[in-house]
């Protein structure tokens, strides 16, 4: 990491940082699992932020105001209310697909787009263009599901099953 260069100048003030990143990720995942129920097919998509558990009240403002903001212990709201963290790897790719289902569906149908290249990055795939072609070809099988979780499952297995895509982070 580039930042390590900066670190050369610095001196450790705290050696007491003992929490492992894995432990952190695990906690996040658990928090996601026990989080609020998802709203309909929106899963952890924008809809879940907008409407929470109350469909109908169209108030986009809620997207920036609900969550655990007021908590004195947890501080600034993390990420999403229902999802984990979108980081490189299988869990991160899954989170990204669930949260961006509608946009990814559009890009997959077109065979290209920003969500495809971002997903390729998270999945460690060699070539976003090939991923786009593969997701376009398998569109109907992957995206016709009602639940975003199932869509994510299908997309991930499409990326895993095609060795030529070389999605290293999913291996």
């Amino acid at each position: 990491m580039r930042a390590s260069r900066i670190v050369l100048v610095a001196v450790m003030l705290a050696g007491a940082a003992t929490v492992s990143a894995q432990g952190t990720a695990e906690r996040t995942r658990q928090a996601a699992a026990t989080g609020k129920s998802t709203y309909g097919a929106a899963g952890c998509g924008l809809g879940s932020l907008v409407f929470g558990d109350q469909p109908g009240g169209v108030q986009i403002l809620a997207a920036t105001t609900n969550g655990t903001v007021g908590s004195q212990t947890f501080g600034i709201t993390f990420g999403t209310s229902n999802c984990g963290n979108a980081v490189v790897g299988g869990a991160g790719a899954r989170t990204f697909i669930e949260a961006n289902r509608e946009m990814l569906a559009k890009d997959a149908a077109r065979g290209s787009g920003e969500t495809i290249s971002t997903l390729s990055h998270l999945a460690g795939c060699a070539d976003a263009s090939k991923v786009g072609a593969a997701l376009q070809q398998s569109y109907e099988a992957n995206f016709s599901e009602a639940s975003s979780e199932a869509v994510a499952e299908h997309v991930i297995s499409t990326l895993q099953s095609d060795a030529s895509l070389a999605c290293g982070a999913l291996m």
Partner: protein
Amino acid sequence: MRGSLLVMRLLSFVAAAVALLPCAALAAGDPDPAYLPELRAAAHARKLSEHVQWRRLGRWRDGLTGTKSEVDGEAFFLAPGGKRDPAAELDATLAAFFEPEPADAAAEHPQCRFPARFAFLARELGIDPARLPPRSCPRFEEFWSRLAARSVTLVFSSYYMDNPSSAFGHTFLRLDKVAPSGDQLAGVAVGPGAGSDPRSAASGDAIAASEARYELLDQGVDYAAKVDTGNTLLYVVKGLAGLFRGEFTARPYFYKVREYADYESRDLWEYDLALQPVEVAMLVAHLWELGHTWFDYYYLTENCSYHVLGALEAAAPRIHLLQRARMPVIPAETVKALYDNPGLVRAVRFRPSVRTQFELRAAGLSRAERHAVEWVAARPQTDLAFTDDATRARVLDAALDLYDMRRAKDVVRGDAGALAAREELLTRRSAIPVQSPPLRVPVPRDRAPHLGHGAARVAFGGGGSTREGGFATLEWRAALHDLVDPPAGFSPAYQVEFLRARLRWTERTNDLRLDDATFVEATSLHHFDRFDRRLSYRLRAGAETIRDGGCRSCLAAVAEGGAGPAQLLLGDRLTLMLTGDAVIHGSAALSGVNGSGARLGLGPTLAVRVLGARASLLARAGQRWMPAASPGSTFELGTSGRLHLGTVSAALDWRRTPLAHEVLFSLQVFR
């Protein structure tokens, strides 16, 4: 492990800039109680509580009632009177850093709760970690690694008329996981496109894959009111009076893009800031502090843009952003404040909304293809007459954007019918084995918000009336933009004016009176065509002088609204708008309905506007029938011409009312 170490390393970089400390000192142990008085004495000797960064970290401002912090959450202060006493707060903060680990596992140690204060004091006082051992802060570290910030972008979300809180635009921060590389320093705006690697593709420069920007994965951080009412009136009152709580939240940027660009069809302008790594680290630490607390949210002053700038200032004391903030704080004005600091804006980028993307796709289509787009978006099963795959793909690509543009709210809401129709379109598109090329979005450079004229406008002028003779006027407007103001930096489809008042002195009678007082006036234009059948609308609330037989030039309260189709033609240079209007006037002096002081006027208004960078012209003609009032009808006919000369515009207005002709020449100064 790596991530959490990085947290402390980066922070310690801040802390260690003054003192290089022996690594032997790293073992965490109990703090040395004798060290606290030493640190306090050092802080007093250096008058550290007056240090600009300490003041900014605690949001203390000197005002009429003395020094006071803008933060309203009590837990933000460790000293009992900390809100008004930066020095006491500094002493209490130092003491709190010596506290033992909290017994309650849910509680955070003050060092973890205030990492930016800790970093600031450690740096300024050269805190010895052997005598004041730093605590482990797992929650903050998780936040830190989730943001993984290496660069900061201020994002301006364009004016959005459908929501009163967004009519002036909105700004928030994006904490970027990738530091900008060489080619991005050029300041060239590049749309994200729909293509492959978001940034590297455009530059032609082979950027290592790890350095490609995946902005969707960055974190958006914004400050917003926690609105607890659906009542518009209550919303306005509470927003103005500071009765909402404002809080900072962090969400992945993909939610922000979905919310603004897709759901609300708002273009996003991204201002990449040249902050030092230390400043980025301090910003993250400070946002963590702010995320724990809240402010009273004042719609006009302490709003989203204000506190976003405050956070930036606190992290980077060398920059000055709030010194030009004045009431009301307008988001676009805060973008301009960035430019008060030479070199702070490294690049400006543009992310098109789904509407902008659609318009671009549609512009590349033939007439027959556009026709097909409309049909297929409305009826996904429609047969396409085109045989070649590339054309079919282009038509469906545009239809998809059109569908999302029209049905965004239904799609987000999870409306089954909307999703099913969309799915059908998507499935059709996916069956065509053509990968769409990236959409190259030309950046509408002249609409970048930092280019806009000043929000406040003062105008003075003189004129004549066939009825009243010569007169002089003085007008003031708090914000923001009318239909003939200089167009740079604004959408041509947009007018929002807030707080406007005009005084008029008449020579013949030598009297000075309030001629017009507008609380709010807004116009939202939509080009009416086959793809977008929304009506344009305008509304106004305030008071105006009646210039017909209803009374003798009395000042009457006015509420007015109208809607109708509009055309924006010739690249937005020519606008035609026809609205059906309703206007209510109220004044004790008015001969209103059945002798009351209120009257209702109904009728059409035709408006024609010619808009240019240097000059603009607006002509308006309206007829009003006023049932059961006297007189039974009235009309208004007028033109407004503007010549834009930088921060000054010359204005010539002519108006014909039932009782008089009037001409007014004035100079408008924007600031």
